């Protein structure tokens, strides 16, 4: 398994499980050392929601890559809710589930939890294959 999926921003620290064609689960840790917390925000550090969405996209891409090969990119997201702040010390459990797929694309739904509580939910993650 590749533990560096998602890179520095749409980070996935560990892939927990991948069921090709069905779903995938991964972890992202949120340490207090992240420089982003200096400015986001000085008095109240919060992991930007856009980065959680990025991690869900990276996990969706990894699920598709393992089943179908190539490289996949998040092209669109719809009906995304950010319900709770994610702060230093939290561990995000990210899960994506395949809803539909075609030759060039796929639609998944995704969810991020901290301690079992949903913090972010994306009803639609639209992925496109960008390399074979």
């Amino acid at each position, binding site marked *: 398994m590749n533990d560096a999926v998602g890179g520095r921003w749409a980070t996935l620290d560990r892939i927990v499980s991948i069921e090709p064609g069905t779903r995938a689960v991964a972890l992202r840790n949120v340490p207090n050392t992240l420089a982003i917390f200096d400015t986001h925000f000085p008095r109240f550090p919060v992991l930007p929601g*856009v980065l959680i969405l990025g991690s869900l996209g990276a996990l969706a891409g990894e699920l598709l890559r393992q089943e179908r090969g190539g490289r996949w990119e998040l092209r669109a*997201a719809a009906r995304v*809710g950010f319900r709770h702040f994610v702060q230093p010390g939290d561990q995000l459990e990210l899960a994506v589930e395949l809803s539909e797929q075609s030759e060039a694309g796929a639609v998944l739904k995704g969810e991020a939890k901290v301690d079992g509580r949903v913090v972010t939910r994306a009803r639609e993650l639209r992925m496109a294959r960008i390399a074979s």
Partner: protein
Amino acid sequence: MRFHLIDRVEEWEPARSVRARKVTSYSEDYWEEVDGQPIVPPPFLFEALCQAGTWLIMNTTDRRKRAALLSVDSVSWLGHVTPGAVLEMVGTVDSFGEERAILSGHVTADGVTVLEASEIMCALIDADDLASADETERLQTMINRAGD
């Protein structure tokens, strides 16, 4: 890195609209590589539009409030952005209340649309809870100088 993705607010109308700018440079330290080419991490493009909305809220409320992202109805990424590009974030308010605001908009890179988003809903929270008033005022002065 400093997560300040707006360099200037070029134009704004209270509680109505905002147009903001960010220049990108290879000297920044956020680049990620795709097919051997550095690109702006796609989540940053969305964040830049959200931050343009935040500055509109701060300008409109005289720095009393800023925004926390609650939801987005849809967001689409239409292209990659490479070093040297000049980003323009354009946001239009769909609704603006005491507690919440909803904004739709797009981001262009050198005039080409690279992101579109509709109905970005944010909570208006007390700015003092997030950052010191002095620092926010200093930044606001810098960022608004183009619109003076």
